[in-house]
């Protein structure tokens, strides 16, 4: 059976624990045999019992404890069971963890990873389905990552997690997605219809956070550029493929794995050719990732940016009912419909 994103994250988490005894995993319900609410930590406590600490339901306190461990030379990894609970960590993440290094005049490092699943489409309702990462974008000192469901050029969802745990010297919020867990990890052989470049932002000198640029192989020049991360990137890829083969609407898709901070140079390059940008995210639309990306595109491209659209969740809590949730969150069909309109408008 094909490995999933969940398998990839789970396997590399165990590898990170085994690679460095300073890596400490903390979280609620993470011990075997349960292995965490979404099973990312399954096998960890069996493989490295001394490095895995099951915790009380104390997210704020845990973030502080992980921060203290990081300041004193350990490499803590904190699992927050649902991304919705990140609100409970706000003080620690913003006023402690993200600030220490700069505020102490670069005299400390804080090698800390907080990983958590975001996202809806499972009917969990208003407090267990959100994509709240936008609350933590733009916090100086905090890096926010979201893996892609690829295994290409030596990078994969799990490799991003493992390398971050073992190499980071500053705090990272690692945003997973509940539906992305079940996605197969796609490799070259699965992506034969695509031409894929693995790129890096200019400031990412160690080339740790790949950006993927996807085109349909042999296609004529793209009319629209899409950008999306996490699970939405997979929906965007499916839309890209379907429209290319069924309707001859050709697009480029840029998938960043670092969603803050970013330069998105490959996105700027692509939009400078197509003139059209569609920015897609699962969080609510106002003041989100897409808003900032859109502004940066406008600042960089001026009149070369002809048409900019965002697709995101509607501005309500996430409903529990399947029908309501489907209406509230951006769907594959919404991406396709928007691409049709954008390609016509500029025909």
């Amino acid at each position: 059976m094909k490995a999933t994103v969940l398998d990839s994250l789970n396997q590399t988490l165990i590898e990170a624990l085994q690679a460095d005894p300073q890596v400490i995993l903390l979280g609620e319900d993470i011990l075997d045999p349960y292995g965490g609410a979404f099973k990312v930590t399954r096998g960890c406590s069996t493989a490295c019992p001394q490095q895995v600490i099951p915790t009380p339901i104390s997210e704020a306190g845990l973030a502080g404890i992980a921060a203290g461990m990081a300041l004193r030379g350990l490499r803590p990894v904190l699992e927050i069971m649902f991304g919705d609970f990140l609100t409970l960590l706000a003080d620690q993440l913003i006023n402690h963890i993200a600030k220490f290094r700069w505020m102490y005049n670069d005299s400390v490092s804080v090698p800390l990873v907080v990983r958590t699943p975001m996202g809806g489409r499972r009917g969990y309702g208003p407090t267990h389905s959100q994509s709240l990462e936008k609350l933590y974008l733009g916090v100086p000192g905090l890096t926010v990552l979201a893996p892609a469901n690829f295994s290409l050029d030596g990078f994969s969802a799990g490799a991003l997690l493992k390398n971050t745990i073992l190499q980071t010297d500053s705090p990272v919020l690692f945003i997973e997605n509940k539906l992305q867990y079940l996605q197969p990890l796609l490799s070259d052989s699965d992506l034969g219809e695509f031409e894929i470049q693995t790129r890096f932002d200019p400031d990412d000198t160690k080339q740790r956070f790949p950006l993927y640029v996807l085109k349909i192989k042999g296609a004529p020049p793209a009319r629209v550029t899409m950008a999306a991360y996490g699970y939405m990137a997979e929906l965007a890829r499916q839309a890209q493929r379907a429209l290319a083969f069924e309707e001859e609407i050709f697009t480029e898709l840029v998938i960043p794995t670092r969603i803050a901070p970013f330069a998105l140079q490959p996105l700027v390059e692509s939009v400078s050719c197509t003139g059209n940008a569609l920015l897609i995210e699962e969080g609510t639309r106002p003041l989100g990732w897409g808003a900032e990306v859109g502004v940066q595109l406008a600042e960089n491209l001026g009149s070369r940016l002809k048409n900019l659209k965002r697709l995101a969740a509607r501005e309500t809590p996430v409903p529990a009912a399947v029908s309501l949730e489907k209406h509230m969150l951006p769907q594959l069909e919404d991406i396709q419909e928007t691409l049709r309109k954008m390609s016509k408008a500029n025909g």
Partner: protein
Amino acid sequence: MTLEEEYFRDMLRIRRFEETVLDEFKRGVFSGTTHTSLGQEANAVGVIKQLLTDDIVVTNHRCHGHFLAYGGDMRALFAELMGRQTGVCGGRGGSQHIHWRNLYSNGIQGGIMPIATGMALAEKQKQSDAAVTVFLGDGTFGEGVIYEAFNMASLWSAPLLIVVENNHIAQTTPTHYVLAGDMRLRLQAFGIPALELDTSDALEIASQAFHLMQEVHEELAPRALILNTQRFGPHSKGDDTRSEEEVALMKQQRDPITIMEKRLNAGAVSVIRAEVEAQVKEAFEQALSDPPAEEEKAP
């Protein structure tokens, strides 16, 4: 130098440093805000003198005394408060956000408690000999996160001394307006043995702190020390709503420096006073002539 003379000198250094800060604030030498610990010097000196070389101090917005008792450089602290390049953190942190060696402070109430716990657990995990001392105030007992941390510190046996400086007033609010029950019982409810003192005598605090730190090191488990104390100055700069009589009575009855001075002979006192005066003056003037903090130029 006797122990009493040393404690007297170290408390006086804190006192004169902070008096200078408050005085010079009025003249515009310092900017921003500051929180002084006038009257509470016995806590800083009495506790921190008992730490071993590698031990860690985690402190709060009222941290000057802890920094100086820990051995921090007076000029660097003046410079930090003045926003100079030579400041403890190059001017980035200011009065309440400092880090030097194994001392860390932050200006948010409560958040340092789990951080101190995490540090203690890290040292234990690394099998180092270091323990952690964290300083909390009575006002911080209103913050929920400290109870999460008390629970985990006890549960996981963190080598940690929790020092509560209860000065009976949080900014302008008397503690009895805002605190139900008993701080000691709150700590004990988590299985953390807690000792309460009501004194301004640095020697008495030192003796209990020594025993508690010894237990923390030997048992690799948390202990708490609640120090009933008093703040002579305002919370910050000019926000004291207490009557002058109330503060005057406190100074008369509970000044830690006076208490220690009475144990010393007059000759030693005048020598130490002159020495501290000269140190403070020199540190202040050096800091004043240091260059202002500047952003590094982009490469």
